[in-house]
C-alpha cells in the first residue's frame, strides 16, 4: 500500500532535487525525471561502478525518466503536454532559468491552477545571493556550520559527503506535501520556493543565538565540548580497534565507576581517591582536565569497541563505538527492521534503503532502481498519443 495517492511529479534540473524527488517516489508518487537528451550531466559523477554514477543513482531510485529539450519547440511542446497530467513540478534550476524558457513557475500555475511548482535552489528565488553559483560545500560555509566543524589547527571542515543539500531536499519534499495537502481542500496549487541556505541556517541551532545573546562567536573545537564553567572535555577516544565516544561524566557515581575500572587495570591511579561529587569534570580548568584525560586514555587502548560497549552496558557508562560505513550498514538493528532491499545497478545488484521511515502499513511505497536516461520515453509519450514514428523523428531532431 502506498502512502501517497496517484500523484505525478515531473522533476527537472540536476543539482539539488534528487533526494526530494526520491522521497516522494518512495512514498508512492510517480516521479518522472525530465532530462535533456542524453541525460543530466550529474549522471557521470564519480564514483562510477557497473556503468552507473553512484552519487546520482543513490538519490534517483524508484523514479522514471524521459528526455525533452526544453529549448527546442518540439521538446517544449512535449513537456507542456506532459504538464497537463502532472500534479507537481519539482525543479532545481537556477532562479529565472525556467522564466527564460518562457516556463516561469507562476505562468505554469496560471495555465494549470491545480499545479504545484516546487523550486529548490541554493538561496531561494530572489535576494542578494540568489543568482550566485553554489555547491553543498559553499552553502555549508555560508551557513555558519562549517566555522564550527573541524579542528583548531586545520581548515574549517565540511560534513562527509553532501549533507547540506539533503536538508534542502527534505524541506522541498515537505513543502510539496504541505502544498498538496492545501490543494486537497480547494483544488488550487501554488509555488513553493525552497532555499538550501535557509535549511542549513535552521540546522545551525546554536551559533546565531550565541552571537545574539552572548556577543560571542564559536570556533573549531575538534572533538571537545565545554559543558560547565571549566575547560573543554574530549569526547572521542582511540581504542584497540577504532574509536569510541565517551566524556568524563558529571554524574559522580558514573565517573567513579569508570575510574574504578581503570584503576583496576593500574591506570589513572592518581585519581583513585578523587571525589567526583566534590569536583566535577565540567568545572575543572583545562590543565586539570588535560591531566585527568591523559591519565585515563591508556584504559581505552586495552579494549576493543565491543568490549568497551559491553562494559558500558553493564556499568551504565555513556559510551558508544564509531562505525565505518560497512559496519553501519551491517548492524543487526537494520536487518531486523528490514531496512535493506536491493536494486539493479548495471550488471550488479546492490543494497538500497527499503523505506525513508517505517509505517504500520509495511513499506510507504515501492522501491526500485534508478532509471536510465529516457528509458520511459516510449511509454510516457506513447500515453500522450505519440507514435513510435513520431518519437523516432523527435529523437533524430534531438528534441528527446
Amino acid at each position: 500500500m502506498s502512502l501517497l495517492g496517484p500523484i505525478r511529479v515531473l522533476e527537472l534540473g540536476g543539482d539539488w532535487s534528487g533526494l526530494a524527488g526520491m522521497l516522494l517516489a518512495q512514498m508512492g508518487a510517480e516521479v518522472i525525471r525530465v532530462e535533456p537528451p542524453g541525460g543530466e550531466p550529474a549522471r557521470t559523477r564519480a564514483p562510477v561502478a557497473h556503468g552507473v554514477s553512484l552519487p546520482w543513482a543513490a538519490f534517483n531510485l524508484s523514479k522514471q525518466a524521459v528526455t525533452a529539450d526544453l529549448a527546442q519547440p518540439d521538446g517544449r511542446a512535449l513537456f507542456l503536454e506532459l504538464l497537463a497530467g502532472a500534479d507537481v513540478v519539482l525543479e532545481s534550476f537556477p532562479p529565472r532559468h525556467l522564466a527564460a524558457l518562457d516556463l516561469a513557475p507562476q505562468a505554469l500555475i496560471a495555465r494549470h491552477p491545480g499545479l504545484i511548482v516546487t523550486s529548490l535552489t541554493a538561496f531561494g528565488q530572489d535576494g542578494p545571493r540568489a543568482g550566485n553559483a553554489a555547491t553543498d560545500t559553499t552553502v555549508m560555509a555560508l551557513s555558519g556550520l562549517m566555522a564550527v566543524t573541524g579542528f583548531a589547527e586545520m581548515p574549517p571542515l565540511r560534513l562527509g559527503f553532501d549533507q547540506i543539500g539533503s536538508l534542502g531536499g527534505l524541506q522541498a519534499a515537505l513543502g510539496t506535501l504541505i502544498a498538496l495537502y492545501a490543494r486537497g481542500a480547494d483544488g488550487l496549487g501554488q509555488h513553493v520556493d525552497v532555499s538550501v541556505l535557509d535549511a542549513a541556517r535552521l540546522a545551525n541551532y546554536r551559533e546565531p543565538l550565541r552571537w545574539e545573546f552572548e556577543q560571542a562567536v564559536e570556533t573549531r573545537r575538534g572533538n571537545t565540548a565545554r559543558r560547565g564553567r571549566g575547560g573543554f572535555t574530549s569526547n572521542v577516544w582511540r581504542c584497540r580497534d577504532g574509536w569510541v565516544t565517551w566524556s568524563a561524566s558529571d554524574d559522580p557515581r558514573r565517573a567513579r565507576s569508570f575510574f574504578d575500572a581503570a584503576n583496576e587495570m593500574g591506570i589513572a591511579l592518581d585519581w583513585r581517591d578523587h571525589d567526583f561529587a566534590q569536583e566535577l569534570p565540567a568545572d575543572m580548568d583545562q590543565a586539570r582536565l588535560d591531566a585527568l584525560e591523559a591519565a585515563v586514555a591508556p584504559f581505552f587502548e586495552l579494549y576493543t569497541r565491543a568490549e568497551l560497549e559491553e562494559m558500558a552496558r553493564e556499568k551504565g557508562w555513556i559510551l558508544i563505538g564509531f562505525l565505518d560505513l560497512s559496519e553501519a550498514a551491517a548492524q543487526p538493528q537494520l536487518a531486523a527492521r528490514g531496512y535493506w532491499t536491493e536494486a539493479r545497478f548495471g550488471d550488479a545488484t546492490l543494497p538500497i534503503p527499503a523505506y525513508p521511515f517505517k509505517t504500520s502499513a509495511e513499506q510507504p511505497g515501492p522501491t526500485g532502481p534508478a532509471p536510465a536516461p529516457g528509458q520511459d520515453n516510449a511509454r510516457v509519450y506513447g500515453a500522450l498519443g505519440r507514435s513510435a514514428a513520431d518519437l523516432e523523428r523527435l529523437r533524430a531532431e534531438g528534441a528527446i
Partner: protein
Amino acid sequence: MNRAQPETQAKAPGALAGVRVCDFSWVGAGPRATKELADHGAEVIKIESRARLDPSRRIPPFVNGDGPDNSAFFVMSNTSKKSVTINLSEPRGVEIAKRLALASDMVVENFGHGFLDRLGLGWETLSAERPDLVMVSISIAGRTGPLAAYRGFGNSAAATSGQSFVTGFPGGPPHLTNYAFGDVATPLFGAVAMVAALDHRRRTGKGLFVDCCQLESMMQLLSPALLAEAAGLKQGAIGNRETWCAPNGVFPCAGDDAWVAVSIRTDAEWQAFLDLAGLDTDPALATVAGRLAAPERAETLVADWTRQRSRDAAETALLAAGIPAGRVQDGREVSEDPQLEHRHIADRIEHPAMGQVRHVAPAFRMSRTPSRVGAAPLLGADTGDVLRHVLGLTRDDIETLQADGVLQ
C-alpha cells in the same frame, strides 16, 4: 508573522489549518518536526509538565529571567504552538491526555521506549478507539529491533550511522560535530511522514503508525557513500574534497582564520579560474579526471591565489567569474547575512516573556498559503483554553483539577 506577503494574504488560513496535533514530544527531534506543521497553520498542542520540564526550556541563552519561559533556545523549536501542562503521574492527568489525543488528528511522541504504552497512551490503545488516528514516533534507532530500547544521546546516530567516520581528514579521528545533525535531519523526515500520513488519512480514512528514527534518517542521507561502499569502493574521510570534482575545498585567505569555500565542478569553471588568476593552462589539469587524479596540485593553485586576497574579495571575484564560492561565516555573520534577512528566516516577534526575540521561520515560502510564525508558548499558557474548547471542560472542572495538581 507573515513573511513579506501582502496584507490581504496575511489573514489566509495556513495550509494545514484544521489539523490538530497532540504533541507529547520534547527536546529536539520531535519539536522541530511539529514546529513545521504549526508554522503552516496546524493547531499543535504541546503537552508539557512543570514537574518534568522539556529540557530545552532549561537550555540557555535566557532572556529577562532564567525560568522555563525565558529560554531563547526553546523558542526555535516551538514556534506557533500551544502549551498545555498535564501531570502524567496523576491518573486523571493521563485521562485528560488521552482525551486530547483522541480529539486530535495526530499524536507525536519521542519518549523513551515504552513510556506511553505504560501510561496506556500507546498506539495499540489509541488506535483501537480511533482507527483513523495518525501516530508518529521519533526515536534513536526505531521502535522495533534489538536496539528498540536503546537510549542514545543527541549525537549518537552520528557515530552509529558512519557520519562521524566519513567526516574528518584522512588518517585523523572521526569527527563528532558540536551540533547534533540527527536532531535536525530526523525531524524533517518526521515532518514529511506526518503530512504524508495526514494526506493518506484524508484519502483513505485510515490512521497509521509512523516509526521514524535518527539512525535510518542519517543512513538515508549517507546513501550515496553507502552505495559506493557496497559496490566495493571503500569510503573514508576525504576532508573537504568531493568524489566527483576537483578542486573542492576550503582555502585560506589574507587575515586571521579567514577562509573561502570553492568548488570547481567543470572544465569551463576551471578555465574561468585560470583566467581570473592569470595562470596558463596545464593540460594535465584541464579535465575533471586530471584534476581528480592530482587534486593537491589544483588545490595549491587556488590556495596561492586566495592567500593574496581578503576572504570577501576572493568570494566576490570567484562568484563574478561564475565559480561556486562561499565565505566561511561565523555566528555573527550568519545572524546578519543579507540573504537570510531577505528571506525573513529569523524575524523578531513579540514573545510574552522575552519581548522582541528572533523566531525562526520555515525554509520555504509558499505563494498562496504562506506560513505564519507565532510566538513560542509560555509553559501551560493554553491549558484552560484547550481544555474548555477541545474537551468541553468547565471553568469549575479546570479549577478543581488545578487545585488537585493534575494540571501542573
